[in-house]
């Protein structure tokens, strides 16, 4: 049971962290690298707002990637966060492997 709980938490934390990091990465990298005006020669003609409202122009592929991360990715991250909260509060840590937790009386003997 302990291993299952640990694996579940590790999986959820990995999903949550991946979603968060990819989201922040898209915001910051697009904000730093993408043009503020349409670049027809580079096919960067689709507007998208990143990093607190900055309007940048991206290609269709970059646009789809951002939409995926901001949309579906965001929902998955939120879902993983909710499950983490559930696990944290409702799936009690069974204690050390082997089951028995030494009581105060036992340790005083």
């Amino acid at each position, binding site marked *: 049971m302990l291993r299952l709980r640990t694996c579940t*938490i590790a999986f959820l*934390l990995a999903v*949550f*962290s991946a*979603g*968060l990091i990819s*989201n*922040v990465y898209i*915001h*910051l990298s697009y*904000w730093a690298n993408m043009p*503020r*005006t349409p670049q027809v020669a580079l096919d960067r003609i689709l507007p998208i*707002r*990143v*990093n*607190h*409202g*900055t*309007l940048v122009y991206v290609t269709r592929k970059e646009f789809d990637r951002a939409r995926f991360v*901001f*949309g579906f990715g*965001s*929902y998955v*991250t*939120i879902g993983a*966060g*909710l499950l*983490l*909260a559930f696990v*944290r*509060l409702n799936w009690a840590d069974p204690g050390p492997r082997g089951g028995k937790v030494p009581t105060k009386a036992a340790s005083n003997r």
Partner: protein
Amino acid sequence: MDFVRDSSYDRGLLKRFVPSNSLAFKSNPGRAPATPSRPDSESGLYYRARYYDPAVGRFPSEDPLRFDGGVNFRRTNASPSLGFRAQRQGYYPSPLYGSFLSNPTPSRSGARHLYRYAGSNPVAGLDPLGLWTVSSGLTISGQFGAFNWQISLGLAIDSCGHIGTYSTEGAGIGVGAKASAGGSVAVSPGGTCICDLQGPFDYASAGLGEGVGASLDTAAGFGSNGQTVHIIGVTGGASFGVGGSAGMNTTQIHPLGGPSCDGC
């Protein structure tokens, strides 16, 4: 007279045509405005959400709140008498700007136009309305060891009338509290539009309570115009332990209605 499009006005509320000979334009050609709560650090001409041209004592863009802030523009002044004095001194029709800034209303009638805030004197007067964003929803945070995570869901509105849902996920390091969940309310004085909330923030949070608890949350990020967007909020609800956390979160905004963010 030539009118040019200032690219730095793309954030909507400043999406106006400004005269090319405007001091505000010359001082900031294509430059990002500063934080709405203090003047532009270089030119000193940007006040809250709009530029000010001291040469004519006027703002080159209309009030983004339009008449929602009230038609008595003097009430936005720190000193009502100052506003009246500014009116009497006649910051009115400017032949320099032609009809763009014209004000056909006589000065002593309480002119109704959108180019005068704080009695057209933001140096001495204040414009307490500015622009703001408010968000409210559910916040859940928890900890595994030193790893802290948090998520939030709710509604955000701004002073331009935009409304949308937001979702925030964040992670960082923390100490103390096992978990907390509750309703949260946050205000963003630097967020001129709900779209300004979209993106990464550095956050810090501190809370306490056993059973029922509360926490104070703050976050900061750089807005679309280069201004700092602050979020200050409180969360009240169930809490398990005393703790604090800091890290990075990111917010997504899903507009539900109101005008386009381009028109904010």
